[in-house]
Every structure is written in structure tokens, then in C-alpha cells.
């Protein structure tokens, strides 16, 4: 049984959760809300974790579920158009960042889990509760879209 303290987990995984939430919501304020809610769930859940990896996967899954709840809420649907969109962030970002942020949300998630968190297709499938085939297909489609975006940018930039 994996033993942990809340403070240790907060220190270690707050950025991980925040980045995934930001990648999914494209909004700093929503990402902050989701991150807090994930830790609220951790604190209130009566969960046993076999390993730290198990705990991390649970945190990521809860992050995804909470963002799904957010997207499904009528409150979000009504207010989404007023919210900030980090694809238009004033900070200097690379073409890669803008290209990824232009992807549909489901593609951003698999890209993030694969390229940033380093999960395999099978591991991502378990976290997002989808089949490996679906994840593989989403990754393939996302790569294709990224390639198109970036080629388009290069053409425009010339």
C-alpha cells in the first residue's frame, strides 16, 4: 500500500494537474478551479493506492472527469465565449504550442498525455477510459492536424 501525505502530493502533482487542466480547458481560471477540485476530491475520497503511479493516474483521470463535467455544464456553455483563451496568450509561445492549442480538446488530451507525461497508448486508454484503438486513432489524427497547421503557418509566414 502506497503511503503519502497530502502536502507531498500537492507539492509534487499540482503542476501536473494544472497543465493537463489548462491543456483541456485552454483557460487559466478554469484550470485553477479544476486543480483545486481535484485536490478536494483527493482529500475527501477514501482511496487506497497501491503505488505512486496508481495515484498519479487517478489524479489525471479525475482531472479529465472534472473538465468533462465542466464542459457539460450549462454554466460553462453560457460563459465559455467570454472566457480567456490561452491560444491567444500575450506571452511568447512557440508554433508548437499554438498548433496544439488549436486542436480539438480530445486531441489535445492525448497529445499532452503522450508527449508531456510520456504515457503509452495503452496507458492513455486506461486514463481516458477509451479503447487503445481509439487513442491510437486520435493520436494519429492529432499528429496529422498538427502537421497541417504547422505547414500552413510556414506557408503564411513566407
Amino acid at each position: 500500500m502506497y503511503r503519502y501525505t497530502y502536502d507531498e502530493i500537492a507539492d509534487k502533482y499540482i503542476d501536473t494537474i494544472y497543465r493537463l487542466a489548462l491543456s483541456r480547458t485552454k483557460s487559466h481560471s478554469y484550470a485553477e478551479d479544476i486543480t483545486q477540485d481535484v485536490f478536494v476530491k483527493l482529500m475527501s475520497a477514501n482511496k487506497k493506492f497501491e503505488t505512486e503511479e496508481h495515484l498519479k493516474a487517478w489524479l489525471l483521470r479525475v482531472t479529465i472527469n472534472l473538465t468533462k463535467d465542466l464542459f457539460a455544464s450549462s454554466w460553462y456553455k453560457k460563459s465559455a465565449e467570454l472566457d480567456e483563451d490561452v491560444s491567444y496568450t500575450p506571452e511568447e509561445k512557440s508554433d508548437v504550442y499554438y498548433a496544439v492549442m488549436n486542436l480539438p480538446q480530445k486531441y489535445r488530451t492525448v497529445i499532452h498525455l503522450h508527449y508531456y507525461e510520456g504515457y503509452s497508448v495503452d496507458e492513455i486508454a486506461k486514463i481516458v477510459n477509451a479503447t487503445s484503438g481509439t487513442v491510437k486513432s486520435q493520436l494519429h489524427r492529432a499528429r496529422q492536424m498538427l502537421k497541417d497547421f504547422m505547414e500552413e503557418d510556414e506557408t503564411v509566414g513566407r
Partner: protein
Amino acid sequence: MEDKEFREQYKKEFDAICASDGLKSAVKNLKPQKPRKVVTPFKATIGTVAAAIMIFAAVSDYSFEKDTSGVISEKVVSTPLPETEFVIVEKKPEGKTTESPQTTQKPVKANEAVIPPSVNVAEDSKTVQTQSPEINEADTGIMPLNEDGPAPRMIGGDEYVAPTVGKWTLEQYYEYLGVNISQKIPGQYTGSDTFEFEIGTDGIPLDDTAVLNFITANGTTLRVTVSKHVLFDSAVSGTVSEAGNGYNAYKISGGVYYNIYAVNTTKDALTQIISSL
């Protein structure tokens, strides 16, 4: 661009993104209320009754020794039983006599003898430990959920048994909370009609938090996060502060935790809403 180059650039971009200091502080400060002194529902009831008798005696100038009249006083003051109490249950681990008793905390009604399963949080270190659940659904008083259990899955090479998922209607959720929030919030409910919860092996939701959305006639949108778990220090209960495009308010009332995010309103209006909870 090669896959490896893309990965490096993507990592570099996201490595630079970190949670703000404010968020880190907020997450660190999330903690349950400090446990009160050890008290059982029976003791709490006895204590309340005793207090009521003492108050009664004080206001009526009643002497316990000289009860001869049969008529005590016209002034009657009663102390109502608290609807919800946090009950700390001391429990010795079975078969072990050397360990100190474990303490669990969960809101339960004062007149219900319930031994709640819970996350054990040591106040000094916030060490989260788990305890074998030893109650069933009937013990919790929570109505059964429509179960739809997913199959065990493997994550990171370790077996992960996904919790069962169950659904509650809005009415069932209000019944569980013990309060109809739609009657408390001055607005039209616009949220979901059903709520899914992951249910632990003990038959109760691992997390009972739900997000309820309302819109008022003035166009104020209210996102009300509710739970029976106490999720913040009671010191912030009743406070309203600026947040994002609106205001955020916290309230603990009747054993229910409220976190309200309101847009298109004033601080005073939100203060008035939480004061009515």
C-alpha cells in the same frame, strides 16, 4: 518536424507553465476542520438535554431541592437539538491492542448511531491513511445507487479496480444533503438532473461533491459546489471575495459545504445569498 523534436518543444513549452503561488497556497490550505473533542451521539444528546435543563432552571429560578409546587415557571427556554454534529468515533483496530485508537470524522446526524468510514487525516502532518470499511449501505442511511460497475483495469502495471459508478437524481441528492438547495438559491436551476458518483466498497460515494448551476432573473450565474464533507477551514465560512470575472463565496451551514462562484452580480448580493443558506 520529427516526433522527437516535437516532444522536446512541447515539453519545453509546458515545463514553463506552473500553477500560480495563489493556487499552490489555496491547495495547501484545503483541509478538513479540526476534530472536536471525542463525543458520541448519545453523549451529545445527554449533554444537550442537561444544558437545556440548566438553562431552564436558571431562567425560572427553579430549585432542584425545593420542588414542591409542581408549577415551575411561565418562562420556558428550550435549546434545540443540533441537526447535524461532527461525531468523532474512537475505534480500536481489531486484534491489535498495542496501537492507539484511530479517529474518524464525518458529518452525521446527532441522533443517529453511525460509525462512518472516512479518510483519516492526522492534523499535524495531514497524513492521509485509509481504513478498512466496516459498514454497509444500511448503516450509512444513504439510498442505494443504480450500480454499473466497470471492469478492473491495469494502470502502470498495477491492478486498478475502478470504483462502481452510480447515479442520483437531483431530488435524491438533496435528500442525501438534507437540504433542498433549489429552494435556498434565488434563481432558476439550470444544471444537470442526474449526478454520477464513484462508490467505494463501503457503498457510499468516494466523493459526494456536485456542481449545481443557477441563473437569477437579473442574469447572475451561480455555480454552487456542494458537499457534505467539510473542505475548508471554518474561518473562511461566510466570506466573499473577488475571483475571476465575479465573486467567490464560502459557507458551511447545517453540515453542508457551499462554494459559490457568481458572475454578473455584486459582492453585497452574493453576501445576501450566502447569508440565507
